[in-house]
């Protein structure tokens, strides 16, 4: 990973994936991109789970 990957604007999954794929290209690791796309789908599912809307995180 390069040092400038984890920026605040990466909180949206689409932005996260775009930044991660760019970083993978920058590092000469195109083989990472299919895995990152699978991870993005998993992250969408994780964030959509209903437990995220209950408890402390919903109070903000």
């Amino acid at each position, binding site marked *: *990973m390069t040092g400038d990957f984890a920026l605040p604007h*990466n*909180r949206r999954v689409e932005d*996260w994936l775009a930044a991660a794929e760019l970083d993978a290209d920058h590092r000469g690791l195109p083989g*990472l991109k299919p*895995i990152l796309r699978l*991870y993005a789908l998993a992250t969408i599912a994780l*964030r959509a*789970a209903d437990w995220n809307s209950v408890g402390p995180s919903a109070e903000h």
Partner: protein
Amino acid sequence: MDNLTGLPIAALGTRIRDGTTTSEAITSACLEQIAQTNPRLNAFITVLGDRALAEARQADHEIRTGHDRGPLHGVPLSLKDLIDLAGTPTTAASRVRQGSIARHDAPVVANLKLAGAVMIGKCNLHEFAYGTTSDESAFGPVRHPLDPTRAAGGSSGGSAVAVATGMCAGSVGTDTGGSIRIPSALCGVTGLKPGYREVSCAGVIPLSWSLDHVGPIAACVDDAWLLFNAMRGDTPPLLHDRLSPLHCRLGVPRTYFLDALDDEVRARFSETVHRLRAAGANVEDVWIPHAADTAPVYLHIAAPEAAAYHAMAIERHPEAYTPNVRLRLEAGRYILAEDYVRAQRGREVLRSEVDAALRGCDALLLPTVAIPPPTIGATEVDVAGRTESVRSIMLRLTQLFNLTGHPAISLPAGATSQGFPCGIQLIGAFGKTQQLLDLARACEQQVR
């Protein structure tokens, strides 16, 4: 000599003690089996021939002179090569570990040695345990005993093959998402993932510290029970008489777990349920409401934990990893902390739901692996009309119980029309591994 391999541990112990045979003869028979079989199956990375024979002769001497250490005394065992055995390499099946020699025994090994076990060798695995097929190893793929073009399952593939083919009487594996249970099921042996932290993980190279478990792979439940207790350093409690499945309550979490199964695996599982019912078991459906969230929760914990452990090594020696394991580790470094935290919350939800499902029954019952052994190197497989990634489908039925920490055991339960073994899992309440083993003994003869 041949009839000394493949026997249950209790039978070996009886023969040693009544003078019918010796530990040295049993160890020699296992070494001969390794010499004949390992070149084809690649189950062992290190074979400790002379050292094992010396340990066996020492065991024979101790037993002859009245210093009997119990049922494992003189019994040859193997270790997944992720576990430290003093004076031998712990390779993790990786070139990254080249030249590393363990200085101490892992506590689990020390306990087995105290029980008198003979260490016969270190078994091949998926590199750093990061895979379900054992076909990505610096030492070449582990091959299935019934068809060397197929994978043995993983990551403890070498251990399962070694036990299935009588190269040792039992083995110690690790299980982070199913790595004991998956190869045990595919190779037709018994694999126990104890409850979280019931067996020490010290001296074992971690994959994901909060998901890792150490446990036995054995020929039968009695052997798994003996190994489990010895690994903990416990004096085994008295073996109960074999229970009848009569009146036991088993819960099948049908939704999600039975949604994507190979047709033959599904048919064998249905037969297993029928047999258990015929033997008197009460088998009913149970529901784990968020089961379908298991894979995303698992991924967002396992991947960054693995990446954290490997961060320095992958910066220094990326080329030393096998290509796919390297990519999997690299990808884990992109997971955001906030998603790791979300996954930990999901894990708590899942844990309480498994607890709730277990409140109405003695154990959960489900298949261990959704497919027969995949072809070595395959990345996708067709399951019930859908194309699935091999890694996802292999983990689908096991990884939940790494997240929740519940004890889980895989038992052989029939075979496909091509003869490939199928397995079932029984999941017990947390802290009730001994009771789970009792139940597994009761079910074992009904489901084989």
